[in-house]
């Protein structure tokens, strides 16, 4: 048996100090070891994006990274979005409002890709969304509502952070 690898990682603000098998994927580590089942195992070879989480702020396919590589990293999963009391994150509210999900399987990946997009592009236009979420597949809703949801999420997130600028209001108007 290969030697296990020691790993210190922060997931959704909680520090973990664990030993993992080298072949354990980040996806399996989150789902099976930490019981964070929000990141979904879809294609498991990097095509569908359902397993997308943020590693040090970057949208990452957790099926294409080994947990052993996470030493010192900070991971955010979809479980970090809603409050402990169950209040939805503005991005989740926008997806609900715009019917940006149907079965919900792809949604955790869509949401986390959106978190990253909005951090760089707070008021995205449809083309920005199609580019940023191009690697996330949805089989039921159709993409138009997802694009609408992400565009609607920009102003909602800004408003929740109290950082709506005049320019941002103009764009969203």
């Amino acid at each position, binding site marked *: 048996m290969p030697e296990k690898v020691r790993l210190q990682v922060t997931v959704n603000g909680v520090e973990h100090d664990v030993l993992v098998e080298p072949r354990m994927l980040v996806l399996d580590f989150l789902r099976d070891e930490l019981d964070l089942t929000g990141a979904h195992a879809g294609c498991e070879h990097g095509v569908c*994006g359902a397993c997308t989480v943020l590693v040090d702020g*970057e949208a990452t396919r957790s099926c294409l990274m080994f947990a052993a590589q996470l030493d010192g990293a900070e991971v955010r999963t979809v479980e970090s979005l809603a409050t402990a009391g169950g209040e939805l994150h503005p991005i989740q509210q926008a997806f609900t409002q715009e019917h940006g999900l149907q079965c919900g399987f792809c949604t955790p990946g869509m949401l986390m890709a959106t978190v990253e997009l909005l951090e760089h592009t707070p008021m995205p236009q449809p083309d920005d969304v199609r580019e940023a979420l191009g690697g996330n597949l949805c089989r039921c809703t159709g993409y138009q509502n997802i694009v609408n949801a992400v565009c609607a999420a920009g102003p909602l997130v800004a408003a929740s952070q109290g950082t709506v600028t005049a320019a941002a209001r103009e764009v969203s108007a």
Partner: protein
Amino acid sequence: MKPAPFDYVAPRTVAEAVDHLARHGDDARVLAGGQSLVRLMNTRLATPAVIVDINRVEGLDAIEAENGSIRIGATARQRAAELHELVRSGAPLFARAGEHVAHPSVRRRGTVVGSIAFADPSAELPAALLALDGEAVVAGPDGERTVAAADLFTGAFRTSLAAGELITAVRVPRGGDGPTGSAWTEISRRQGDLPVCGVGAVVTLGDDGTVARARIALCGVGDTPVRATAVEEALAGADPTEDAIAAAADSAARDLDPPSDPHGSAGYRRHLAVVMTRRAVSEAAARAREGAPNA
């Protein structure tokens, strides 16, 4: 857990990485961005006994100017390269080709050098390196050597690297000797897919407006990326009119022996080679004429 068991090492220096690679030979694989390798491991098309993770090697992710070249380190991400001012101004073909690789979230982890070392004959970046007369900087047990792109790709998913060797960076020359323009064109089944055929062109014009030099490389049309030498020769010294470019591009498929697969027949790929070469050269020449610096 889908991959077969393996030992994991995360060296801190190139020397340590090379040492691991030399010790384990073909049983070891280098892990950089993992966007190709881990996919193969999940389906067990690759079952390496040892993974040498080079992400912890200090400084390997640098993108920097080096004499007349741009050096892109082994763990520099594709997204970082395509957005980097040095690349966009000095070797824009690399950025243009890079924008066609998969999707942003894949490019944020995937590395430029990893894609080149993987040597997929359909992939954009190996062809872009070839068109730019780039080279790989290779570290091995006997020290460092450089390998020109033309000598690097030896077959589908094969390079001329020996066991124990590691590509630590690729270097591409900056700009051209005169007004230079570049373009990348490709046809893929869906956006983000590997191209059925892709063409990168870099055109440098002389003082009289004729083509001083054209550099053209294609992917998806053989076991390796290929230089369109016949087209380059036909363009040299020519006035880059639409007719002259079309006439030159007609020879793009002359020496090709493209594969037939469900994505496209050999005949279709030969057709695309001509059409995409014409479009790429035409666009590159137009950019060179506009005189945008190093466009």
